[in-house]
């Protein structure tokens, strides 16, 4: 170790902070000039951490489920009644759906319809938030030999979640539809009106630039297949008017509590989903 005199050491100690501030500005510039460097650094750190977080996700999920079970005990009676009513309603809809499916099959047989192959998907566990304070994104833990690519679509439960933006060897990052940078061409199902769904970083994204009449409250919103950016007719949510007459969309997927998402292989989707009404059904339907 080099021995320095006390005044020199003190001068060096005083210089450290200004030099490091200058280096910070250098890092800012580096991040601006080459955004890929930052992305690569982030995703390689995420690659290292994803297996650890995936290991933690099991026990933490169990704890969370236990806590919410305790909370649910209080509302068990009311929920039972609600579920019975919902079940009766859904049984009715199921019979309608089965009848429609049979009719659809018969009509397709008459029209010599070319059947669309059902798209393939992989399921991945959400292991961490990957958005920070000013973005809405989640980190997925994926196996080392996955086939996930940037640009693929992520779905959960009832609807669209977002799309894959960064892919590492063990982790992938999905930008949610609520992120400030998210723009999705959508179709209002009832009126067949086209619009753009814009994320606001808030819980509900909003609709802008609709072509025809204004969206109706409660109308279902699905993806539009324009420009091939998204496979068409994936459910997103329903229209809801907020204060100030802003048309927002309540996402069908619970974006705050994502646990697993399905990543749709858009290769198959792009080849086959044009015109198919329900491109991605859960297995066993």
């Amino acid at each position: 170790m080099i021995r320095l005199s006390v005044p020199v050491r003190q001068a060096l100690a005083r210089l450290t902070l200004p030099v490091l501030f200058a280096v910070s500005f250098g890092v800012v510039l580096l991040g601006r000039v080459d955004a890929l460097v930052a992305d690569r650094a982030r995703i390689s750190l995420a690659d290292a951490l994803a297996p650890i977080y995936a290991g933690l996700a099991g026990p933490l999920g169990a704890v969370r489920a236990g806590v919410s079970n305790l909370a649910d005990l209080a509302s068990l009676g009311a929920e039972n009644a609600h579920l019975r009513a919902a079940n009766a309603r859904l049984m009715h809809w199921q019979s309608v759906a089965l009848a429609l499916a049979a009719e659809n099959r018969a009509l397709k047989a008459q029209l010599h319809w070319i059947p669309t192959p059902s798209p393939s998907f992989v399921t991945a566990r959400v292991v961490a938030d990957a958005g920070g304070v000013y973005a809405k994104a989640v980190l997925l833990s994926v196996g080392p030999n996955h086939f996930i690519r940037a640009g693929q679509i992520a779905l959960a439960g009832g609807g669209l979640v977002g799309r894959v933006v960064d892919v590492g060897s063990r982790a992938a990052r999905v930008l949610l539809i609520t992120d400030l940078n998210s723009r999705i061409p959508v179709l209002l199902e009832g009126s067949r009106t086209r619009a753009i769904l814009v994320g606001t970083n808030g819980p509900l994204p909003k609709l802008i630039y609709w072509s025809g009449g204004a969206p109706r409250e409660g109308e279902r919103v699905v993806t539009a297949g324009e420009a091939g950016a998204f496979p068409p007719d994936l459910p997103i949510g329903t229209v809801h008017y907020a204060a100030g007459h802003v048309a927002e969309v309540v996402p069908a997927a619970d974006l705050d509590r994502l646990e697993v998402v399905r990543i749709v292989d858009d290769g198959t989707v792009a080849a086959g989903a044009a015109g198919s009404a329900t491109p991605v059904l859960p297995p066993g339907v």
Partner: protein
Amino acid sequence: MDDLGPAPGIRPRPSLWRRLDAIARASFPLTCTVLLMLLANAPFGIPGQAALLPAIAVISVYFWSLFRPPAMPPLAVFLLGLLLDLLGWLPLGTGPFCLLAVLAFCQRWRRGLANQGFLLVWLVFAGFAAGAATVIWGFASLLTLRLMPAGPAAFQAVLTAALYPVLAIPFSQAQRSLANPERA
């Protein structure tokens, strides 16, 4: 000065274990901060969890640079800032700038602040929390060329200020026992 080292005198050369113990105690604040930051990103599923990460970083840098400055050297604070950027998906450079600013102010005001009572230190920290949230908000807005909503910044400032006692009380216990190199 702060780092005059141990009092002069002749004493036996410390054994290997003793030196390892001293190193472990001296590096406790940094190790603890890094582990807490990694833990803050774990999938707890708490709403608003993203604001936890900058809060932990700011609290740690503030506390340790006030009460044990040798444990928070500027280079380590810079690296903590980079970790904050990478883990929190902030624009690169935000974390180092924010944490170094906290460190610089702490070094300047240390003489007056370190001897004050807990409440006053907390009150001053609330100012630091607001400043840090503003810096992160400003960088995020400036570097993405888009005015970010102010709500998350306000939430982050309040969460950071509110979380201070939760971390500072165990930290000050540790400072006297676990992280004290003189007790090695």
